[in-house]
């Protein structure tokens, strides 16, 4: 039963991912797309958490943790790029 519900959750999060993809493709601005990408990172974390429960393994939590950390860095870097061109100055 839990598995079934979790599969439903996968479907929901998968749908969210597709919406992000749509947003990323649609834009219209770069920042919109960047926002979509960042959301995608976070949704991926959601997916990993669900997947962990589904498989009953915590092997993937570090991946989720890193996505949280690194997604932040890359989004910030792109923003910095948009603002200043030079991300390390």
């Amino acid at each position: 039963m839990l598995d079934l519900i979790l599969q439903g959750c996968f479907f929901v999060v998968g749908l969210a991912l597709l919406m992000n993809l749509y947003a990323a493709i649609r834009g219209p601005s770069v920042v919109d797309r960047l926002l979509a990408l960042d959301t995608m990172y976070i949704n991926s974390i959601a997916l990993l958490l669900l997947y962990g429960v589904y498989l009953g393994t915590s092997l993937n939590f570090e991946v989720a943790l890193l996505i949280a950390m690194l997604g932040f860095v890359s989004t910030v870097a792109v923003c910095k790029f948009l603002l200043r061109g030079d991300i390390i100055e």
Partner: protein
Amino acid sequence: MIELLFIVLFPLIGSLVPVLTARWSRSYSALATALLPLAALVFVLQLAPAVFSGETLFYKLPWVEALGLSLSFRLDGLSLLFLFLILGIGLLIILYARYYLSEKDSMARFYGFLMLFMTAMLGIVLSNNLLQLWVFWELTSISSFLLISFWWHRADARLGARMALMITGFGGLALLAGILLIGNVLGSFELDVVLSQADVLQQHSLYPVILILVLLGAFTKSAQFPFHFWLPNAMSAPTPVSAYLHSATMVKAGIFLLARMYPLLAGSDLWFLMVTITGMTTLLVGAYLALFQHDLKGLLAYSTISHLGLITLLFGLGTDLAAVAAIFHIINHAIFKASLFMAAGIIDHESGSRDMRKLNGLWQFMPVTATLAMVASASMAGVPLLNGFLSKEMFFAETLHQEVLGALSWLIPVLATVAATLSVAYSARFIHDVFFNGQPKGLPRTPHEPPRYMRVPVEVLVALCILVGLAPAYIVGDLLAVASTAVLAGPLPLYSLSIWHGVNLPLMMSVLALTLGIVLYFNRKHLFRFQAELPELNPLQFFEVKINALLGFAKKWHHRIESAALQRYLMWMFVIVAILLIWPLQQMGEFTRHNAVQAPDTLMFAATFVAAIAAIATVLCQRQRLLSLVMISIVGLVVTLIFVRFSAPDLALTQLSVEVVTIVLLMLALFFLPHKISRASNAGRLIRDGAIASICGVVIGSLSYALMLEPQQRISDFFLANSKIGGGGYNVVNVILVDFRGFDTLGEITVLGIAALGIFKLLTRLPLFRSSSDAQGRQWALDKHPMLLAVVSQALLPLALLVSVYIFFRGHNLPGGGFVAGLVTAIAIILQYVAQGVDWVRERLTLEYHRLVAAGVLISTLTGVASWAFGRPFLTSWFDYFQLPLFGEIELASAIAFDLGVYLTVVGATLMILANLGKMTTEHRPVNKGQS
């Protein structure tokens, strides 16, 4: 018979003597140079009696057995004859050159090259191995190149030398092919083995090819038509060189080869035809052209060509007597031509010109030299009582006793007479035009007799002309006999070397030729006029034009093929890949289904869809660069998720962290690259590239599908079984990385370290190219380091470090490890750079990154080296468990030290790359304000 080796070796060592004695006086230096060849001659004389008594002497030193190449010498009659010519005339040339060369000319260089050349010639005639013969053969080409170009400041000398080298080099290669084929057919290169197998060879289907190749070698060397033109242009060499190379040696090497191979190759119809016709043509062409030369040496050069043709013709006739005549003429020609060249050199040297239109009436100025030259040219013309007459007489006789051309055989004596007539005419010109015929015109200086000893060589040779002419049997009879025996490899025919054979047809031909020749000379105007109307062909110019045409052709095609367009090269590469891959794929046919195929699920469908769309979007917006970067990040994210999905968390971690660094890097790059570019490719190219890309995609995709369906028989079970017991870790992937295949990892971090060093190199003295506004022309924002970001970043730093320590230590047993830990650390520091700027970080982090990199790799390496101390191979791991109070069981493993190296390298390298790139941009950043 080690003396045979010495005969060659001494002059070789002799080539160093003039270099070593360069500081001595010229006479002493020349004398010293002459000593070693003289010694060689002594050896020859010492060995001569044995040869005269019919022996053949051998000496062999192994060299390259794999090739069948040995230093194998043989001394028979033919070799002996040539040894006398080479060494005898060579010594005279040394004497002559002492006076000929001016103070400006480097004697060391001249004598050095001359000795080298002499060595090469001696090597040829003494060779008992065909490959060895070829080696020395090529050496003559090389050393003659150096001699001909002795006065390299003159363009004609340079070009003439190159032309000679090219022609003889070509012949040399043909000869090599011929020799190798002989070796293939007969199984040996040793002459004493080979020469006795004429039947085998001539029956073989390759015989015609071999014959043609060998003859090409011989003909190019001995300047036979149509390869004759290099010889006159080699006359830009100093005269001693011409006297040596073009009388007794270089060109005679070709003749020697004919004589040497005579027992092996001669006797067939093909031989008759090719050698006879070539010889006859050369004889005529040379004699005819000699008549029109205004240059003294030019005349002699064409005369040489003509006489070489004569000798070749004689070998072509194929009768034993003709061969004897040929050998006799080799001797005679060498003697009179060497003396003539030297005489011409004296004239040139003392009068400053070689132009026969200027040289007139020299008899008054240098009567002795004139007399000598006249005798020698009379010999060349075939005047009785001189040596030239004798061999020419034999030649005439032989032209009458052949049936080479069948019904047309009568042509040969007729043409021979014509050639003799021409020869008389040019000899007459040499005598009359130079020594008589009025007064000199416009000579640079007043001619006079040369220094005493400069004339000695000429005197010696002219004396020989007369002596041989008068008493042939006494002087050269034995030599001719042993030489002929060697050539014929059998009993000698009956011949007589007397000067009078009665009134016979050959004598009539001689008389006719002499008479007609004189007549022709005095009526030469008509002939000159006729010749003047023919188009002038300057071989040097011709050669240059042809070479330039060749280079032009090469350039055209080279540039057509190598267009310096990377896209084309890459296209080729992918096309080749596609072609090479489609074939095995097609063979596979339907994919066999060994493996259970797993049913796809929604998530995987979604992932496929997202990845595909994002990849295509990356392609579509590749000209809006930031966008494409966003799109490719999506692809990267999906790939990460796929790794998670299929149970590879280590991969996901690594992929993710690498991707972030890559994105940061690409963004740094974007700052310098144009943000938006216009469409560069036309529709045709897009379609073409699309097609290639699609094929590659389909091929690779299919291969991967086929691969996934293959049954698995892998070595991995070993890793699973030994990871814990042998490597001390539960995470098999990590144990493979730091232990089973730790060597790969060492290489991998080395690559990373080198990349960092290389990038640092690339960034030094980078002439910057920057934009003060973005793609839309908008000024950059003023807020360099947003405050909120700065605060949060520094708060994240300890957290990130803690996480990286955690990831580092758990790596051995759970997903993680030094690499990911290093990247997390590096990214956390990079975040500081982004949030606070280069200067801020530099104040707080005073690390030399290259040292960090080096230290990292060094730690890993030394971990590996440490196992030597325990007598184990490099990188043998060690781990153990310790019970400590409170702590419980603790595992210590060498893998941790290894992984620490990995960690440090990754941190060092990543920071070295990113921070330096960032630093670079900051240091030179122009002030934003005040720019339009």
